[in-house]
């Protein structure tokens, strides 16, 4: 693993996979390209997206004449009255060129025509900023287990507007059997949503196709690596998603790692022993996987075109919190339809609590997850306040029914904010509900767990 400061910006995992000699060379080059991507991310974090100390208001005013200031793929330099917006592919050219060259080499020797085209298109996008073309080529890749991504993607590190993208990358092997299993889960969950009027969700993306890829991961780098994501959907542009659907990638290796190093140790530390003995490690891992599936499926239902611009820097907080609560809310459909049993749903709720605590513990080392932490604090504080969770030397028996009730209530509020709420309403909601001190109730039980993973 590679790090700068306390941050892990490259993670590698052992994956056993039989490949032809040529594919081995392709994968090796892709891995090298992903490794180099960490350098771009490191540079972004050191330089920042905007001039140091500049205010949001000044940038907003300047963007009227120079709209690129607010573009996801431009960095801003200069001083007030003389801001300059430089496209990423020019600003980071020195670091991007060797990555693009590695991809070019991989593309040249790749024998799968669709993968070849994708690799070469992605190489070009790093040189000229044609990211959408690369995403389109990615969606057309067929007949291969090899998957990868390199580019500017998540906006969490832009603390001013939640727009500027941080570089990241991964290489993985698609597990077709598990992808099919998750696809069934998705279809069961979306089957009623697709028929319904848009009461609590938008069906635009599921109708175009939510494509599932569960992957054994060889390497991750950049933001995705730093915060140890277990899954992400690509791309983020709502217009693209509405036209082409989405690609949800599950980073199984990162989930396994997070489970072993954090989720399970937290489970062992905070729950009453008599209660904890009801849930096996195997069941909890399955629940962790389902939890992240429900979270990602839920995000697909709540991508409203205007949300990001309306809620601006608060979008991440609302979106993250909603992903978790709406995900579990949808989980009940799976119970009543007989796809999962109630013990698994209980385990999913337990994992939901563990996940919140794990992210809080990691926050000390990965400040990029600030929006997650604020959103999560609103959820867990609600459980404490309403008596769904009680703490006395750790968490005693959770009241699952009560938790479910609170989840539904909160999901309604969050979906409203994403769909049509104003910035002011979101601001008030966050101010009223954020309670970072809630995490401290369990601090004593978590002292022995190292979250710098």
């Amino acid at each position, binding site marked *: 693993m590679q790090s700068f400061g306390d941050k892990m910006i490259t993670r590698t995992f052992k994956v*056993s996979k*039989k490949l032809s000699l040529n594919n081995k060379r392709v994968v090796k080059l892709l891995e090298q390209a992903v490794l180099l991507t960490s350098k771009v991310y490191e540079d972004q974090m050191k330089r920042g997206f905007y001039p140091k100390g500049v205010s949001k208001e000044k940038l907003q005013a300047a963007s009227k004449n120079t709209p690129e200031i607010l573009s996801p793929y431009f960095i801003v330099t200069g001083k007030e009255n003389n801001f300059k917006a430089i496209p990423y592919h020019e600003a980071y050219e020195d670091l991007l060129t060797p990555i693009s060259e590695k991809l070019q080499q991989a593309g040249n020797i790749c024998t799968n025509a669709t993968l070849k085209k994708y690799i070469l298109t992605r190489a070009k996008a790093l040189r000229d900023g044609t990211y959408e073309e690369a995403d389109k080529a990615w969606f057309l890749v067929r007949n291969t287990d090899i998957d990868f991504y390199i580019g500017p993607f998540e906006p969490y590190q832009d603390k001013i507007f939640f727009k500027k993208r941080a570089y990241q990358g991964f290489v993985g092997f698609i*597990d077709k*059997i*598990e992808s099919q*299993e*998750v*696809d*069934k*889960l*998705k*279809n*069961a969950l979306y*089957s*009623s*949503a697709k*028929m*319904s*009027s848009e*009461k*609590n969700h938008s069906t635009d993306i599921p109708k175009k196709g939510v494509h599932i890829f*569960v992957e054994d991961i060889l390497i991750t780098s950049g933001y995705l690596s730093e915060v140890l994501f277990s899954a992400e959907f690509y791309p983020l542009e709502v217009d693209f998603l509405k036209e082409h659907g989405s690609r949800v990638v599950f980073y199984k290796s990162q989930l396994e790692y997070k489970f072993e190093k954090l989720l399970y140790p937290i489970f062992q530390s905070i729950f009453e022993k008599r209660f904890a003995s009801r849930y096996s490690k195997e069941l909890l891992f*399955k629940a962790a*996987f389902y939890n992240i599936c429900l979270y990602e499926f839920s995000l697909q239902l709540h991508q409203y075109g205007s949300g990001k611009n309306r809620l601006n820097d608060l979008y991440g907080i609302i979106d993250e919190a909603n992903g978790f609560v709406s995900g579990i809310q949808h989980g*009940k459909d*799976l*119970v*009543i*339809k*007989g*796809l*999962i*049993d*109630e013990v*698994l*749903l*209980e385990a999913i709720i337990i994992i939901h609590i563990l996940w919140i605590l794990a992210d809080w513990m990691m926050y000390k080392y990965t400040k990029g997850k600030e929006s997650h932490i604020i959103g999560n604090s609103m959820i867990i504080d609600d459980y404490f306040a309403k008596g769904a969770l009680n703490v006395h030397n750790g968490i005693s028996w959770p009241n*699952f*029914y009560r938790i*479910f009730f609170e989840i539904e209530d909160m999901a309604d509020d969050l979906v409203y904010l994403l769909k049509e709420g104003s910035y002011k309403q979101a601001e008030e909601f966050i101010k009223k509900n954020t309670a970072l001190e809630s995490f401290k109730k369990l601090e004593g039980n978590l002292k022995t767990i190292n979250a710098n993973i």
Partner: protein
Amino acid sequence: MAKNTQKNLHPVRRGSKSVYVTSKGLSDAKLELALLKGQKRREVAERIQKAREYGDLTENSEYDAAMEEQTLVENRIAELENILKDAKVIQDVPKSDFVVIGSTVVIEMNGEEDEFTIVGRVEADPSKKRISNESPLGSSLLGAKPGESVEVTTPIVRYKCKVLEIK
């Protein structure tokens, strides 16, 4: 999540009581069993043999994967044999004025519409709109008439659901 090749399985209320299947479900189950006992068993045996030839079994992922698949195939064979032993065939259902196994129903739940067919558990596949008669939703709907509301209750989840139409 465990790899598996099982079809139409769900974890709800698996017991020794009778399993209801349509005549199509019965023939599908018989076909699957024959396939597993013949072609699939042969294929897995060949995979195991081939993997053995790669050498050292302790570092041989192909061998592990093949053995895992063999376990899954044998488990599924045992399961299908049990299902077929206890299966009760449901005759083709004429349109009824209340919900029975085999009915396709349109319901309203939580402000949203949904449509599915209620089948025996061996044929259940919620991703294809086939819900088991033993699932909380399926069992609550049996006997309900159009316009009637039923409550789907489990210790955690409570839903009210209205039957809009029986097809």
